[in-house]
């Protein structure tokens, strides 16, 4: 039998397949692992001699979380399920209603004068409050404010 003198070329056609397999594996497994969370800015430490600013009672909504994860909203027992709507109610604009926070108007670029509530939601927690409950309340508050903002932008931009 006459043998060919050339060495046969190595079949490299499956190399691409192997490389592809590995590529796809790393593509799938390399989740960039995006961290999500609630962003907050802590207040800077106060100087000792600072005057406590006076805030009117009607402008404050007190939310307290007890060590047993119970809510106290404005000295009344609250419920996490209704908290969002309570906050929306409180922060909405009610002109000339003494039961709700004062209303000022603020200049917003593009929108002009916009009535703004002077309301403040004050969240306090006990040392024994569970972190889970704290985050749930923070989340509810955030979604209340988000809803109000969305409502305002829908009024102006749609």
């Amino acid at each position: 039998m006459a043998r060919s003198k050339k060495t046969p070329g190595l079949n490299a056609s499956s190399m691409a397949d192997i490389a592809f397999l590995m590529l796809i594996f790393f593509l799938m497994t390399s989740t960039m692992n995006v961290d999500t969370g609630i962003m907050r800015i802590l207040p800077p430490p106060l100087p000792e001699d600072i005057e406590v600013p006076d805030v009117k009672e009607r402008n404050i909504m007190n939310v307290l979380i007890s060590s047993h994860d119970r809510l106290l909203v404005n000295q009344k027992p609250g419920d996490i399920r209704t908290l969002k709507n309570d906050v929306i109610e409180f922060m909405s604009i009610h002109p000339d209603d003494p039961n709700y926070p004062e209303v000022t108007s603020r200049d917003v670029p593009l929108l002009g004068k916009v009535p703004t509530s002077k309301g403040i939601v004050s969240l306090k927690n006990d040392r024994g409050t569970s972190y889970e409950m704290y985050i749930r309340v923070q989340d509810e508050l955030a979604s209340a404010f988000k809803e109000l903002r969305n409502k305002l932008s829908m009024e102006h931009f749609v």
Partner: protein
Amino acid sequence: MARFKKELSKETPEISTSSMPDIIFMLLFFFMVTTVMRETEMIVNVTAPIAENVQKLEKKSLVSYIYIGQPKEKKLGTEPRIQLDDAFATIGNIQEFIAKEREARDEADRPLLTTSLKVDSDTKMGVVSDVKQELRKVGAFKINYSTRKKVIRK
């Protein structure tokens, strides 16, 4: 067909695929090099709480992590502990830790540093408040409560 010269081969020439693996390998190496599996070895158990209104943490290089949770080793008890880098720490270590994290970053990036609090949902707020007070003292105001995204079932 007969109009064409006889010398021309009738088969279409094959496209050379020999450089294909090279391209794929280049992509493969890129992904292999850029993937980071995990930065720190966890010595505390952290199950983040669930929240809906979350923001993404931008710029991972500007984030320092503080873990709080029960130690993984059972014999260390169930009291929540703070983990900084790869070791247990106490409240007193936080200022030092933040200072070190700042030192490691560019001068221009330092004000943008975010502290991500990865806290177990069963932890009590006492220790979290202490950590927050320490962060206030050291001037690390930007914090992020790490949460999991709620899966909305329809």
